[in-house]
């Protein structure tokens, strides 16, 4: 089996089988890089450009290691937002990279849809490393991998995603991935951060609650999102103290969930805001394993895209409409 598209723009355009293919491929890759000699040759001679328009440490290093362990050459470009403002457009930058015969462009961008724009403009494989509030597919994949590894399955599980759903690309990729693989998803946070449209937008019934007890009761996974502290200035919630009181995951709230409920977080954490240290460092936390699995999943993505059948980018308008379930 092969991936259909040349790019990974999101989990929305992927089928359940494609998602499982990536997860299955990641299993041997994880074995490889946890042994003492960590490198394999499949992408020798290929070049992976990491084009980051937003600061990121975790995702960038994770992609960098994933590419290096597949023996690809890595080109690291951090573009500060100021040089974007005065300078080159995204498409021009990408065309220049392509002129240097780059095979992959891994893009992190603050605007939703930027990777799609890029994918239509270049022949290189485009991997979305997070775009605006839209998707962060490799994060979604590594979360699925972690859940599957720990729980041995995804179908039928109940996952509570807690926090700023409105602005979260991590939440969107997780919702797509989890529902495609048959999990039940509950979204929880203050009403200002959980748009009611989310309930039906994904074509599956998703539970929305503003009450942590309702969200956590019977949950197999408590997925805590990072709270962007500047949201307070936009009056989306009155204070960090109040946010923590109602939605910060601590031992007491976690006790409402199943005994073996996993605690996950995409990082970086605001300890004492959305998650207490007790829980983040506790026995149910798999937060650091998520980081490890990220490399395996990204290796699988780079590897599989090299052999993808498609030349067309995923998510061209017609395709998007054809594949999206009716709202």
């Amino acid at each position: 089996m092969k991936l259909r598209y040349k790019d990974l723009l999101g989990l929305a355009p992927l089928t359940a089988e494609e998602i499982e293919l990536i997860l299955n491929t990641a299993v041997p890759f994880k074995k490889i890089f946890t042994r003492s000699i960590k490198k394999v040759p499949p992408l020798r001679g290929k070049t992976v450009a990491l084009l980051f328009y937003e600061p990121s440490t975790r995702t960038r290093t994770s992609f960098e290691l994933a590419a290096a362990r597949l023996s690809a050459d890595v080109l690291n470009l951090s573009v500060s937002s100021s040089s974007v403002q005065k300078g080159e457009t995204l498409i021009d930058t990408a065309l220049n990279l392509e002129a240097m015969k780059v095979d992959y462009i891994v893009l992190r961008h603050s605007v939703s849809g930027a990777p799609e724009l890029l994918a239509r403009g270049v022949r290189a494989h485009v991997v979305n490393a997070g775009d605006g509030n839209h998707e962060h597919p490799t994060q979604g994949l590594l979360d699925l991998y972690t859940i599957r590894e720990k729980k041995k399955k995804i179908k039928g599980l109940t996952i509570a995603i807690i926090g700023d759903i409105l602005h979260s690309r991590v939440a969107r990729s997780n919702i797509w991935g989890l529902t495609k693989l048959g999990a039940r998803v509950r979204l929880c946070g203050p009403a200002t951060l959980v748009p009611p449209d989310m309930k039906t937008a994904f074509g599956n019934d998703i539970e929305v609650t503003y009450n942590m007890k309702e969200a956590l009761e019977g949950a197999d996974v408590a997925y805590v999102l990072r709270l962007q502290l500047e949201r307070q200035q936009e009056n989306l919630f009155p204070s960090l103290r109040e946010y923590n009181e109602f939605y910060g995951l601590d031992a007491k709230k976690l006790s409402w969930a199943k005994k073996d409920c996993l605690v996950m977080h995409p990082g970086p954490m605001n300890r004492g805001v959305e998650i207490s240290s007790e829980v983040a460092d506790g026995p149910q936390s798999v937060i650091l394993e998520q980081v490890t699995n990220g490399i395996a999943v990204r290796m699988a993505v780079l590897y599989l895209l090299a052999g993808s059948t498609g030349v067309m980018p995923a998510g061209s308008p017609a395709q998007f409409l054809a594949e999206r379930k009716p709202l």
Partner: protein
Amino acid sequence: MKSTVTWARKQRPSQAGASQRVILIRGGHVVDPRNKRDEVLDVLIQGQHIQKVAKDIKPSKGVEVINASHLVVAPGLIDIHVHLREPGQEEKETIATGTAAAALGGFTSVACMPNTVPPIDNVSQIQFVMMKAQSEGYVRVFPIGAITKGQEGTELTEIGAMVRAGCVAISDDGKPVANAKLFRRALEYAKTFGLTVIDHCEDPDLARGGVMNEGKLAALLGLKGIPRQAEYIMVARNIALCELTGGNLHLAHLSTKESVALVREAKKRGLPVTAETCPHYFSLTEESVAGYNTNAKMNPPLRTEEDRLAILAGLADGTIDVIASDHAPHTVAQKSREFDNAPFGIVGLETTLGLVLTQIVENKVMSLSAALAALTDAPARALRLPGGHLSPGAPADITLIDLKAKQTVEHFASKSQNSPFIGWTLHGKAAATLVGGDVVMRGGRLLKKPDLH
């Protein structure tokens, strides 16, 4: 309720001896909504004006005859919502290219919005536009002045002086007037000159940062939504202020079903309000944005199917008077940016008539006559412009329409090509455009600039 007009808009006297040519448009299907004519008639033009509309006019010697036997003969189309971008953004459009696009699209008059760089907010800017239009324009250009200086929403412009110079309405289009008291003063003061105030209805705080319709699709795409309420809250406010002041109010580019309902109710109460929509609001929905298509990014944003149907119903029952293009050219480079960073707006002068004929007339939403009224009589009335009808003595602004011609939208004469309708096949198009008796466009070719002195 109607204000007394103290400043009649002057028609420019035709220069003595300026082409006393005589043209006979023969055998066409005349559709003249204001005069309730909808039959095969001949139209006789003398010089720059219409002389006579009657059956079987016998051509005298030396008369130029245009055979219109297979064509509709309509009053020249009028588009009261156009961005010509000059001065300041000539890379997007100029008065020359914008009016060329207008002539090709069948328009004989356009009213241009003042959000140029700098804005059209004083007499010399009005004069600049009129002078440029006279020397370079293919159709008539009626400038709309800003309501507030610099479109900054704080201080009224010299409205009276701008009217004297040729300004036909005022609007802060693109930057809605947030301050209700200031908008009230604008409506009141404009009454002095019988002037219509146009508002782009949008609550700036509710809409801030938004790039498409708020709803499920925006939630999926991770794009910030503009709630429908941002529009209809301001429609409601403006109607309330219209009631308070009795000033003439024109609501630009309505996009939501609630706005249509509010206008319908206001008209029932006899308020002096007119309303407008654009072809994209009755032809497309927010689904066009999927795939981050920046050519479907406009403000107000494309809404839902329910809204689209409500807009059509509003046109059919006369709640919405005017169809305008909101022609908003942007360069390819500007529209090739990330969705959030691409500008709002699409070009429309060359697709509006085709979309009206295809979506409204062919689909039997409105009769040909009623649909053409929204492009001729209604916009002329909304801003009290000359033209919009074929009465004897009226300017000889005429559009000949071939209802059977099919065109696939490909390339525009406009400097910009930002259109979601590229690739569409439209049924019906302008066969010829006459401005002041001059044939400026025929068979898709620009022939000459009209003598508008």
